[in-house]
């Protein structure tokens, strides 16, 4: 019902010599010469001390930001030189974002929030949209909250709504920026499990920035960043 992503083989997200320099009065180097390949179905966490550039790297991989040098490839195709509209179209259909803060639109019900990206894509009828939205909420165990407004929900529930929203257009790649950063231990555990299931059961590719060791351990692979450069890239033996 939730439409498990068709597994796509090979390298899904790739960074080639990616450098990002903020062009301020004193230029700030966020990340430097990043080489990274993420295969389809991998659950990767990016860790590092604060200011190490892990969020910046995530935004670059998620096409929210463009590199100063180098290129990001999605599904083997380069995104260098794409217009902002083409990048938006890629984000809409192939990427899903989850942030530390849930970023739900406060004027819309939980269900409507989940439906927004699907409505923008415009491939489904209104009835199908509602059904799919409900199915996603059900998958994340919050179908009973569908008609509530975001501010009536607990932090953990809101984050699950945000995850449901990111899955709306059935993207192969989920990017998460400290998704458990605002949650207590119990809710963190729930969210962590959701991500693991999304990778293991549905074959989605997950790239998550975190500073929680427990979260990093749940992943298959861990990339450690210091001062904008990759210092270690370890795979857990399952």
């Amino acid at each position, binding site marked *: 019902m939730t439409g498990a992503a068709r597994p796509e083989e090979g390298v899904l997200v790739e960074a080639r010599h990616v450098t990002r320099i903020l062009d301020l009065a004193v230029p700030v180097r966020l990340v430097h010469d990043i080489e990274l390949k993420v295969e389809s179905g991998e659950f990767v966490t990016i860790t590092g001390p604060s200011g190490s550039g892990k969020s910046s790297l995530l935004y670059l991989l998620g096409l929210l930001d463009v590199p100063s040098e180098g290129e990001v490839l999605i599904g083997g195709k380069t995104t260098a030189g794409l217009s902002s509209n083409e990048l938006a179209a890629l984000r809409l259909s192939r*990427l899903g974002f989850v942030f530390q803060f849930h970023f739900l639109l406060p004027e819309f019900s939980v269900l409507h929030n989940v439906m927004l990206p699907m409505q*923008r894509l415009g491939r489904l009828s209104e009835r199908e949209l509602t059904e799919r939205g409900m199915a996603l909420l059900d998958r994340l165990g919050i179908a009973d909250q569908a008609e509530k407004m975001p501010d009536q929900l607990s932090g953990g529930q809101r984050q699950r709504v945000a995850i449901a929203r990111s899955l709306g257009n059935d993207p192969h790649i989920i990017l998460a920026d400290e998704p458990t950063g605002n949650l207590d231990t119990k809710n963190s555990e729930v969210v962590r499990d959701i991500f693991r299931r999304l990778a293991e059961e549905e074959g989605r590719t997950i790239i998550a920035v975190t500073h929680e060791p427990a979260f990093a351990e749940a992943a298959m692979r861990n990339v450690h960043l210091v001062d904008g450069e990759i210092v270690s890239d370890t795979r857990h033996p399952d």
Partner: protein
Amino acid sequence: MFWRVAFSIAASQLTHRRRQTVVSVLGVALGVGFFIGVSSIMSGSEKDFVDRLVNSAPHITVKDEFRDPAKQPVFIRFPKAAVKLENVKPREYLRGIKNYGEKVDELSQRPGYVAEAALTGQAIVRYANKDMSASLIGIDPEKEKLLTRVAEDMREGRLERLRTASDGIVIGSGMSTRLSLKLGDLASVVSPAGQVKRMKVVGIFHTGNLMLDYGQIYMLLKDAQVLLDKPFIANQLRIKVPDPNAAEGIAAALEARWGYRSESWQEVNRDILGLFIIRNAIMYSIVSAIMIVASFGIFNIISTVVLEKRRDIAILMSMGFREADIQYIFLMQGFIVGVLGMLMGWAIGWGILAILGQVEFTVPGMADRQGFVLDKSFQQWAIGGVFSLVAAIGAAWIPARKASQVHPVDIIRGAV
């Protein structure tokens, strides 16, 4: 359908700031409403006035005068020389339009034209030992009926009875009251030429214009010729043309051909028609000012929403909404305010028209109490509506552009 998504987002953000939205909508609505009220008075009175000018008087009057005195031969012979002539007396010539019968016949043959020869002059009407001076005009009743509204303004009797009664006159209601002169009474009419005629009142008209009601009398052309001692003379050609707006050009052509001063209704009323242009300019400036103030209100609310909703904008962009989508959402907000303002403005305008329709007042120079003549044509409503939409969307433009330039990474970083 993307517009539905955009509309739901735009509408939810406006309802979130309900009070500000209502104020903005009211601003637009008042602008539209007042515009409709004012412009329907303005354009109504203008149309009414022009209507009266066109229908109650001949479109063109050819007079037995010349615009410029004839040039002295010496000026024609030496056009560039400095010549001074002293003691030049205007030439005395027999007044009247030459061959007026032929001219009337020729004009009458043109399709849609009505032409009439008339003789005007002064007279004194005497009855029951009271005198009143009057402008008399000798006419042809059948043609006068088509040229002016005097036949419709008859209160008693009929204009056509001039033809059947011998020595009949038609007088105004004011004169009738002041001289106690009733239908069928015989009054003495005295002309400056010294002629006196006993004439029978066959009709009394009432126009509401005091000058006419007290001082205008009508009689047959031949009676006027006898009374004024100007046999076979007419000093005016009164002409109605099929298209009143073409009267000016036709008058110029007639003047060029015959030499007689030919006045179109536009020429006679040029100063008044000029005033209408100034009046309209004033009205549009005032309405524009109201709309500009109203659009500041819209600009204000949408700017506030954009500032407040930067986080929502960032998340929509990260989801895959394009910059143009974001701009569209905020332009849509302007559009919603504009449409609501327009609808409410129409309602206010309708109310203002209903109130104005009941007002009555007296105008100096007019005998009857009058109401506003309102122009209720579709045009005012359309112009008001366009005004409000342009103001609203124009005001939304800048904040909408600003919203589309939000950089999601900056906002998301800042929020964490």
